[in-house]
């Protein structure tokens, strides 16, 4: 059992929780994730580690309610427990293997979308801790859906915001903003790291290929065990099949077959849809679109 030591609402349908999980907190590195199970009959839900504190023994997760299980997680209150919390899973960001000199020589841009902004934060914070200042683009639907802006500002070099409705920052997609930064505002990058909805990462990858910028994407495939045992999370990376949970979740975005990955994400959609509808009818909450921007 893993205690929820604090919980707060970040934006509509997006909750942050600090979980008491000393072993995970001690081992966690940026880029890794955990798998959470809420109750005895629950699913195993992967969530990226949004922050960790080895001294306090806590791990932060940020969850967006998209379906039945994420809703169950978000319904838990401070002081209550999550039944299972296993991690850290996956490979840490490749950046952790580079020396400070190598890192400082790089011009890195993070592109976050929706709830994906949360997992970008520990990476930016980690790099800040090593004396590396990076830029960040945060994409959101509108002002209300924007999360982690202040946290990000405290550790990033520059934070740019793009909203669909223009209620704050640049009006348009993150890709439009990136184009603007590079083509009109004289920005230069040699590495882009993108975390967000699959469709956003797909378009980011397409643009950075054009711009010739190496790009890493963090994939949120379906998962069951998260330890390399089931293959539910398999993705095509170039000509190879990789398991997101053990080989990833971060991959070279230019090699990812995003269309296949998006299709595979929907494998259980109809089944889940029915279950979700049942739950929704029970508690009358509206369901936010998964594209999160």
């Amino acid at each position, binding site marked *: 059992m893993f205690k929820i030591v604090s919980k707060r609402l970040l934006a509509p349908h997006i909750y942050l929780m600090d979980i008491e999980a000393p072993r995970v907190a001690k081992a966690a590195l940026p880029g890794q994730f955990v798998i959470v199970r809420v109750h005895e009959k629950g699913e195993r839900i992967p969530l990226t580690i949004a922050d960790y504190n080895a001294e306090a023994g806590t791990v932060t997760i940020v969850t967006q309610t998209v379906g039945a299980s994420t809703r*169950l997680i978000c319904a838990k209150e401070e002081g209550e427990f999550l039944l299972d*919390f296993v991690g850290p*899973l996956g490979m840490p960001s490749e950046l952790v293997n580079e020396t400070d000199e190598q890192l400082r020589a790089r011009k890195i841009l993070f592109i976050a979308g929706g709830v994906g902004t949360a997992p970008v934060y520990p990476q930016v914070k980690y790099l800040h801790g090593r004396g590396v200042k990076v830029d960040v683009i945060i994409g959101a639907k509108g002002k209300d859906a924007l999360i982690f802006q202040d946290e990000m500002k405290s550790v990033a070099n520059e934070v740019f915001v793009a909203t669909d409705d223009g209620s704050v920052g640049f009006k348009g997609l993150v890709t439009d903003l990136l184009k603007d930064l590079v083509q009109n505002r004289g920005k230069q990058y040699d590495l882009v790291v993108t975390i967000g909805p699959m469709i956003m990462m797909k378009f980011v990858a397409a643009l950075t290929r054009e711009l010739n910028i190496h790009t890493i994407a963090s994939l949120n495939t379906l998962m069951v065990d998260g*330890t*390399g045992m089931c293959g539910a999370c398999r993705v095509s990376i170039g000509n190879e099949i990789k398991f997101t949970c053990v080989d990833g979740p971060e991959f070279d975005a230019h090699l990812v077959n995003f269309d296949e990955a998006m299709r595979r994400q*929907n494998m259980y959609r109809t089944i889940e849809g029915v279950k979700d509808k049942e739950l929704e009818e029970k508690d009358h909450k509206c369901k936010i679109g998964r594209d999160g921007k």
Partner: protein
Amino acid sequence: MANKIPRVPVREQDPNKRKTNFEEVCFGYNTEEASLEATRCIQCKKPRCVDACPVSINIPKFINAVSEGNHADAARIIAEDSSLPAVCGRVCPQESQCEGSCILGVKGEPVSIGKLERFVADYSRDHNVDLGKPGPRNGYKVAIVGSGPAGLSCANDLAKMGYFVKIFEALHKPGGVLEYGIPEFRLPKERVVKHEIDNLRKLGVEIETDVVIGRTITIDQLLNQEGFHAVFLGSGAGLPKFMHIPGENLNGVVSANEFLTRNNLMKAFDTTYDTPIYIGKRVAVVGGGNVAIDAARTAIRLGSDVSLIYRRSEKELPARVEEVHHAKQEGLEFHMLTNPIEILGTDTGWVKSIRCLKMELGEPDKSGRRSPVEIPNSEFNIEVDVVIMSLGTSPNPLIASTTPGLEVNKWKCIVADDQGQTKREGVFAGGDAVTGAATVILAMGAGRKAAKAIDTYVTKKFKK
């Protein structure tokens, strides 16, 4: 050497009924049936059955106890060599082990050793037979990685010797393949697996779930920071293989491990669980081992029409004879000497059919089995909407890649000697992690050998 009494048949659930439920197929012997079957054993002086049992259970002795009605004694006799009799009595490939060597099998039918073992184990559980207490604590600590049969039996022996034993399990429930792989209808989870694990807890063994060794904590940390004197690796061979044919990533193609895990560990068949599972109208299972048959029979129970596609002939099927027989009764369709070459999909990327080639058997290969050869121009399609890939598994590289000094061979199996000693001091290994996918009883045997070796190691290194 014949025997006048015919082998006592075991009662089973009616095939037409059982293919719609997940209750156990085999009911097992009752007391009368067990007593009668036990009298068939002629109590060989040099029992061939014992040599063929990987953990050398004293078979004539326990059978004799059964024939005399001393079921509790029988249980204690088995317990000297096996800590999972209710499991092995159900899933051991007896026909090629103990029963395969029984002298009665030469001219007639062998003694039903597995069913008797199961009877005794079930009796012992239902009557709370006392199977021994842990030895006094000796002050030494052993960490066990993985809670499958290898880890469980190693833990059992070490606890009895007085060690403090802690098992670390990556999943949320202990049991390994017993819990996530082998289906409920062959091995009941609450009644059998959980009970065996509870027994271990009674011996003082602690189990910490949700810990992935190599990620949450490393072997080095266990040895250097958490004060364990030795480590046993029983992490199994869970990594599924795929065929690398076109269409394998279509929606509707799953590994047997995924399909079985959703249904066993995550109980998708029980609608009170949140687990989704994609149920096809027509399912193709590719492969011929126990895992393939289990996946096929699970799909049948979920309401699908199921075909098994295997590239050799029925004679070469590696699955247990009993299970193949059961599967046939339940309506599994066999496509033998058939090899898939492509999975075809709909416009939206869902499985539509599987394209196969006919095969014929050629010359025997290195393993002695006749290897299948393609028949040219024999392509044909089988219409299916789900394909379950069951092509075998290999050990997960997670532990090896995070443990300096641990050696693996080219199949990614951990290198260990007969006693389980790896190339790394203080680290022992056994079961599927060392041999590649094998059997429950071999994993158990390896766990027990390693327990002995660990005791020897700790005694020499730490005890004055």
